[in-house]
């Protein structure tokens, strides 16, 4: 059985003037010790997915349908009492906004110690020692001094590492990491990634890594989901998706990387922007930006389906694959 099994998850927001669908029937699994990447442009619904898994969608947002099975228990239907037990302990989330985790009026030490005491039978001093160990693990130096500081006294990257340390405090089985290293420079990013990798491999921790950095996804994850306008549009083994993306959107994402352009030149962009939730076009949500769009694309939503090793939601995928092969033969 999977550690996590998400089926047909749909999240909506009832706004003053209309109700929008932020997640539209997404399904995926995470096995024990598995590392799954979620990528997609800003506004695709990556963070909302994380919030939903933690049952943190609050009014005016709501889970419209679907289930989230964590070791067989449905998070969607879970009682608050049970959620309090599981959050942090069985699953924890590293939030994109560190201040979701951090309380500005408490020192780092107070927050870490309180979290430990709420879940474990420990003395204050024992809790403090655990906190120090966890801070060292995320490469915070002088942890004793840092414990007595307030969040605003720390640099952006330190705050980010501290919320990672807090997420790891209770040794959870599933970690949802939402852009965990965006504020970190490459050297520390590499170290933090190694730490997460080590946790997954030796402690069988499941990891959902939400990031816009395809380099990180490529190094860290075994499988990847590509999201667009609240849907999964491509899913499969990470290596395959990076080396041979099938969906025109995924192809565009990879081509837009600065590494793919000569310095000083304009970066190659996918034309247009991700639609806002009130403005999703009929048919394939990507069609206004897609160079391969046909009439069918403008009217019918492509279902996600298996093509060889990967799942893709695109009407034209077979034609594109055939064309790709022809080009390869001609080359």
């Amino acid at each position, binding site marked *: 059985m999977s550690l996590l099994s998400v089926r047909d998850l749909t999240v909506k927001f009832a*706004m003053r003037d209309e109700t929008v669908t932020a997640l539209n029937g997404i399904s995926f699994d995470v096995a024990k010790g598995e590392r799954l990447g979620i*990528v*997609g*442009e*800003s*506004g695709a619904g990556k963070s909302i997915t994380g919030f939903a898994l933690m049952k943190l969608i609050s009014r005016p947002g709501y889970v419209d349908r679907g289930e989230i099975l964590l070791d067989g228990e449905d998070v969607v239907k879970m009682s608050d009492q049970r959620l309090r037990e599981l959050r942090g302990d069985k699953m924890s989330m590293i939030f*994109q*906004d*560190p*201040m979701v985790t951090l309380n500005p009026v408490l020192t780092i030490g107070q927050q870490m110690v309180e979290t430990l005491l709420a879940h474990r039978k420990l003395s204050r001093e024992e809790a403090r020692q655990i906190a120090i160990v966890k801070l060292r693990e995320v*490469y915070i*130096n*002088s942890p004793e*001094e840092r414990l*007595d*500081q307030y969040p605003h*006294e720390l*640099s*952006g*990257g*330190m705050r980010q*590492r501290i919320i990672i340390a807090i997420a790891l405090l209770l040794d959870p089985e599933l970690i949802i990491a939402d*852009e965990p290293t*965006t*504020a*970190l*420079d*490459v*050297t*520390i*990013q*590499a170290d933090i990634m190694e730490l997460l990798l080590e946790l997954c491999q030796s402690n069988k921790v499941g990891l959902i890594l939400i990031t*816009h*950095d*395809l*380099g*990180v996804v*490529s*190094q860290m994850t075994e499988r990847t989901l590509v999201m667009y306008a609240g849907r999964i549009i491509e899913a499969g083994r990470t290596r395959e998706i*990076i080396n041979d993306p099938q969906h025109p959107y995924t192809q*565009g*994402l*990879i081509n*837009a*990387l*600065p*590494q793919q*352009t000569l*310095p000083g030149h*304009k*970066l*190659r*962009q*996918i034309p247009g*922007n*991700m*639609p*806002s939730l*009130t*403005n999703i076009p009929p048919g394939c949500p990507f069609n206004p930006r897609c160079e391969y769009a046909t009439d069918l694309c403008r009217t019918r939503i492509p279902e996600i389906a298996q093509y060889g090793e990967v799942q893709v939601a695109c009407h034209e995928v077979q034609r594109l694959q055939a064309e790709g092969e022809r080009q390869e033969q001609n080359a």
Partner: protein
Amino acid sequence: MKDMNVRTPLVEIKGLEKQFDLDQGWLETLKFRNGRITREKRAVHAVNNVTLDVNRGEALCVVGESGCGKSTVARLVAGLLTPTSGEIHYDGSRIDDLSRAQMQPLRNRIQMIFQNPYASLNPRMTIRQALEEPVRHHNPSFSAAEVREKVTEVMMSVGVDPTWAKRYPHEFSGGQRQRIAIARALTVDPEFIIADEPISALDVSIQAQVLNLMLEAKESRGLTYLFITHDLSVVEHFGTRVAVLYLGSVCEVADTATLFSNPKHPYTRALLSAVPQLKDDRPNHIRLKGEIPTPINMPQGCPFQSRCAFANNRCDSEKPKAIHQPDGSLVACHAVEENRLDEG
């Protein structure tokens, strides 16, 4: 003072220092050590003797490890913090000793984009309110309709649906908020933008769009940037010059092309080797060994010594000075000075 001498840098940072006291109250400085009560005053040495120019029309990128003082430098230059010592000159005049009121006229000429997108917008203002304010300020003759039109244009330029202008920041994703903050900074039509990790929260395609927008503003309006980022591929693309900071000290300043083709300081080399590559499984970076010192317990001598493979006795005791290199770069390293870096 404000002559037309384009050659004076727009910003001159001279011997800048910033320390934060760790112990605020007198009581907190009392420490119980080895069975005795002693008084200790500890400080974070966030910025140490930084000297740096930002030339007109350039994009000076500042890179360096987390906690090395990048944001502190940015906040000092923006006048949001007061230096412990040192001077900052803007357009020929000293600004670090100005009061808030005296800084006011500069507020529109200098814009700052903050590191955390969640902190950069006022949560109680709709996006329209946040954007209309600078538009009105710059175009006092605009009618309400014209103001609205301009706001629509600005939102579209950063790929945010203009029909969402009536919404509040919390209704947007992290990346959307950051783009709105950037759009707002550009709308003020400043001459100098201090951008602290402005695009690290953005995905690649939007990064490309926003970087292009910022490049365009640089070229068409001669905008000057102090651009803090840890993403070296962005530096390579956007920066005209790069300053590498380590533990609050400058280790290397060079033209972007020079820095990437011929990095000299051992720390710069380690930094460049750590860039994750897209199609390669094994990161092949120079692992920095050794204890990372903190700005609380500052080492004597070279700040990088505890992790440097080339450190010797001189590095333990003497802080290296920045020295001009034949290719125009500035490097603060004894091994580079002694020419013993690439031997053996």
